[in-house]
C-alpha cells in the first residue's frame, strides 16, 4: 500500500504541472489586459497612456510570457503563489481566508446529499418495483434536475423572507449554512440515491444475502449489516467525486447566498484577469481534488479487503 500511495503522489506532479500550464495559457489567451481593465473600470475616466505603461510595469506584465510562467512555477514549488494584481496581497492569504468557507459549504452539502440520498436509495432498493421505489426515484430525479440558482432563490423566498427561519445571505453562523447546504445537497442527493439503489440491488441479489435470510436474520439486519457495507464501495467513490465537484462548483450557490467563498473570488478574478490569483487558486483546488481522490482510493482498499494495491 505504501508503494502505491507514493506512486500516486508522484503521478500528481505531471498532472499539476499540466493544469498550471493550461490555466496560464488560457488566462493569457482570454481577451483583456488587467491594467487596462482596472483603469477602464475606474470612476475618474481616461488616463494618459504612459500611466497604463507604468501600471503594467508595476504589475510585472511587461515581462515575456515564459518568464512570467517560470516565475510563477518556481515560486509555487516553494509555496508562494504570488500576489494578486487586484488585491495586492499574497494569493495564499486570499485562499486561506476563503477556502474554509468553501470547504464547509461543500462538506455541508455532501452531508445533506448523503443524509437524503442514502435513505432514498436504500428504500428504493428494498422495495424494488413498488410504489416506494417509484416515489424515491422520482424524488431523486427532481432533486438532481432542479437548477441550483432557482432552488436557492426558492428556499430563500420561503425560509428567509416568509418564515424568517434562516438568514438569506452572508457567511454568518450555522444557520446561514443550512439553506446553501440544502441547495447544493439536493442535487447530489439525487445522483447518490440512484447509485445506491443500483448498487444495493446488485448486492441484494448475491448468494450470501439469501443465506443471511435463510439463517433467519431480520430484513433490517440483512440490509444494514450485510448489504450496506458491500453496496457502499462504489458509492464511496462517487461521494469522493461529488465532494470534488462541490468544491469547484459552489460558485452559483455562493453568489445566490452571498457567501464569502473561493468560487466567487475565482470568477471575479477571471473577469478582472488577475492572473496570479486565478492560477494559484485553480492550482490549489486541483491539489485538493486529487488529494481527495487519493484518500478515497485508500479508503476503498480498507472497505474491500479483496483490493490490494501495488500487488
Amino acid at each position, binding site marked *: 500500500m505504501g508503494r502505491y500511495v507514493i506512486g500516486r503522489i508522484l503521478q500528481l506532479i505531471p498532472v499539476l504541472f499540466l493544469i498550471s500550464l493550461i490555466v496560464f495559457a488560457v488566462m493569457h489567451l*482570454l*481577451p*483583456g*489586459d488587467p491594467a*487596462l*481593465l*482596472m*483603469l*477602464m*473600470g*475606474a*470612476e*475618474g*475616466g*481616461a*488616463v*494618459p*497612456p504612459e*500611466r*497604463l505603461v*507604468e*501600471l503594467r510595469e*508595476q*504589475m510585472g506584465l511587461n515581462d515575456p510570457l515564459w518568464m512570467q510562467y517560470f516565475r510563477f512555477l518556481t515560486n509555487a514549488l516553494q509555496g508562494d503563489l504570488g*500576489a*494578486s494584481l*487586484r*488585491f*495586492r*496581497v499574497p494569493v495564499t492569504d486570499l485562499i486561506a*481566508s*476563503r477556502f474554509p468557507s468553501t470547504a464547509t459549504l461543500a462538506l455541508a452539502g455532501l452531508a445533506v446529499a448523503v443524509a437524503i440520498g442514502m435513505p432514498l436509495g436504500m428504500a428504493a432498493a428494498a422495495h424494488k418495483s413498488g410504489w416506494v421505489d417509484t416515489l424515491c426515484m422520482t424524488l431523486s430525479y427532481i432533486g438532481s434536475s432542479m437548477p441550483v440558482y432557482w432552488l436557492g*432563490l426558492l428556499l*430563500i423566498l420561503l425560509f*428567509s*423572507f416568509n418564515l*424568517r427561519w434562516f*438568514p*438569506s*445571505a*452572508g*457567511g454568518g453562523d450555522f444557520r446561514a449554512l443550512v439553506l446553501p447546504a440544502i441547495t447544493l445537497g439536493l442535487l447530489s442527493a439525487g445522483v447518490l440515491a440512484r447509485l445506491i439503489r443500483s448498487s444495493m440491488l446488485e448486492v441484494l441479489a448475491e448468494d450470501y444475502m439469501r443465506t443471511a435470510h435463510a439463517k433467519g436474520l431480520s430484513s433490517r439486519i440483512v440490509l444494514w449489516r450485510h448489504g450496506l457495507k458491500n453496496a457502499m464501495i462504489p458509492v464511496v467513490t462517487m461521494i469522493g467525486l461529488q465532494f470534488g465537484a462541490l468544491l469547484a462548483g459552489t460558485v452559483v450557490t*455562493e*453568489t*445566490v*447566498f*452571498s*457567501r*464569502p*467563498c473561493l468560487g*466567487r*473570488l475565482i470568477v471575479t478574478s477571471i*473577469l*478582472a*484577469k488577475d492572473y496570479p490569483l486565478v492560477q494559484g487558486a485553480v492550482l490549489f483546488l486541483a491539489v485538493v481534488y486529487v488529494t481527495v481522490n487519493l484518500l478515497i482510493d485508500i479508503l476503498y482498499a480498507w472497505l474491500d479487503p479483496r483490493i490490494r494495491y501495488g500487488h
Partner: protein
Amino acid sequence: MLRRTSSVRRRLFTYAASLAIAAGLGTGAVAQDLVIAMPASNEPASLDGHIDPYQSTWLLNSFIADPLVVLNPEGNYLPALATEWENSDDGMTWTLTLREGVTFQDGTPFNAEAVKINLERILAPETASAQLASDVGPIAEITLDGDYKLTLRYDTPWVTLLDALRRTPIWSPTALAKFSLDDYDKHLVGTGPFTLTEWVQNDHITMTRWDGYGGWNGMAADPGPVDVESLTVRFIGEDAVLGQFLQTGEVDIVFGVPPLFVDLYSDNPDYKFISKGQAGTGLQMIMNIRNPPLNDIRVRRALLLGRDMAAVNDILYDGLYTASDGPLNNIHPCYWEGAASVYPKDPDKARALLEEAGWVDDGSGVRKASGVEGVEDGTPLTVRYSILHHKEIGEVLQAHYRDIGLDLQIEVIPGPVQLDMVQRRDFELMYERQRSPSPLILDQIWNSKWDQPGGWAWTGYVDPELDALVEQLRSIGDDEARCEVAIEAQKIIMDQALMLPTLSQPIFVAMANNVEGFQIGAEGNWFFLQNISISE
C-alpha cells in the same frame, strides 16, 4: 397543588415579561447598530482609496476619513478638513487653508504636513494609484505655509482639483508609516466618524463609532460623534435577495435597490424611498463611424430618429429611469436643453434616410444594401449592440428598429471582451457610461487624442473644432463658462450623431421608517451618515 404551582409560575413569568417589555419601551431605547446592504459589486478589492480606483471605495473611506472638501447634495463644495481654498487665475496654483483642532483617530494631529504626506503617497510610483493620481494631477510642488496652509503648484492648469479632493481620504501619517502599502487597508486611520473594526471580504465591513469625532465635515449638523454606535455594510451578490432584504428586518438601509423591486418600497408607507439621478453620460452607446453602416451619417441619424426612449422607460421601468437625450444626461449641470429636440421620434424620416443611404426595403423586414459604398449589394442592414448590462433596453429597441427595417443584434459581453473589442475597433454600437457632475467627461470621450489604449474616445470621429472645445474644459475654472463650452461641444456631437443616448439609471435607496438623517449625495452613488440616527 401542581395546578397551583403552575399557575404561580405562569403569573411570575407574565410579570417578568411585562417588566422586560416596559423596560424596553420606557427607556426610548435607540437602536445602536446601523446596517446597510449594497450590491456585492460595490465591494472594493482594496479599502485604501489611494490605490483602489472605485467610487464605492472612496464612499466607504468617507466614513473613516473626512476628505478636504465635500460635495453637498445640491452640488456645491463645502469645507471639511479644508476650510478655504483658492485657485489662481491661470488655474495652476491652489492654496488650501486647513481646519485647526483636528486629530486623527490615533491621536496624530491633522495639519498641512499630513496632507502633503497623503498627496505625495498618492503620486508615488510605488503606490501604483490606479485613479486618484490622475485626478489629483501632476503636482509640481507642494509648499507649506505654517501648520494649516499649503500651496499646490502645477505646470499646467488643473481646474478639477476639488472633484479629486472630495474623494481623497486623508490618512494618518503615523499609521501610513507603521503599515506597509499592502497591509494598510486593514488598518485604516482617518478623522472620520467611524473606525474600521473588521472587513470580512465578500461579506461585510464593520465600523465602530469614534467618540473623538468633532464633526469636521460641512455635512455634519452638529459637532461631535454620530448617534449610531456601529455601522455594518453588507455586500449582497444576488439582486433578488438585495431587493427584498429590507423586508426581513436584517438591514436598515438598502443602497442600490434593483429596479425590479422598487415597487416594494416606492409607495409603501412602511418604508422611506429615494430615487436619485446620477449625473453623467447616462447609458449611452458609442457609434463606431469607421466602417459601414455607421460611417454614413444618414444611418446614424436614422438610429436616433427611429427610437422612442420614453416608451422604453415606461415599458421596462415604469418611467423610473431618467431621460438621457444627449452626450450628457438630462440631470447633468451642463446638459444642453436642445439635445432632446434634435432627433425627435420620426420613423418615417428614419426610413427615408435609410432609403437615401442605399438601404432599400425589399419587403423581407430587414433592408438590404443597394449601391452602398464598401458593402456588397444584398447585405442586410444589421447593427451590433454590444452591452455589459441592461440588455432589456436593447430588446425593446430591437422592435423599434425592426419597424424601420434595421436588424439590431444584441450581444451581452463581459468587461474584458468589451475592452478587447474596443481596442480592435471591432464594434458598431458599444456601451459606455461615465458618472460625474463635471463636464470634463466630454473631453475624455470626445477628444480624439484619447483614441488610444487606456482612452475612452472610441468613436473614430476626428474634428479639430470639437477637440479644441472639449480640451478647454480642463482649463476653464468658472462653472458657468465651462458649461457654455460643454454645450457647444454637445451640439457638434448631436449634429454628427456620434452616439445613441438611451436612459440614465438612478440610484434607488430604501430604508426603514425609523432611520433619520440619511443624506444622498449630488451624484447619487454617494451618501452621508454624519447626521444618521435610528429611533425605536
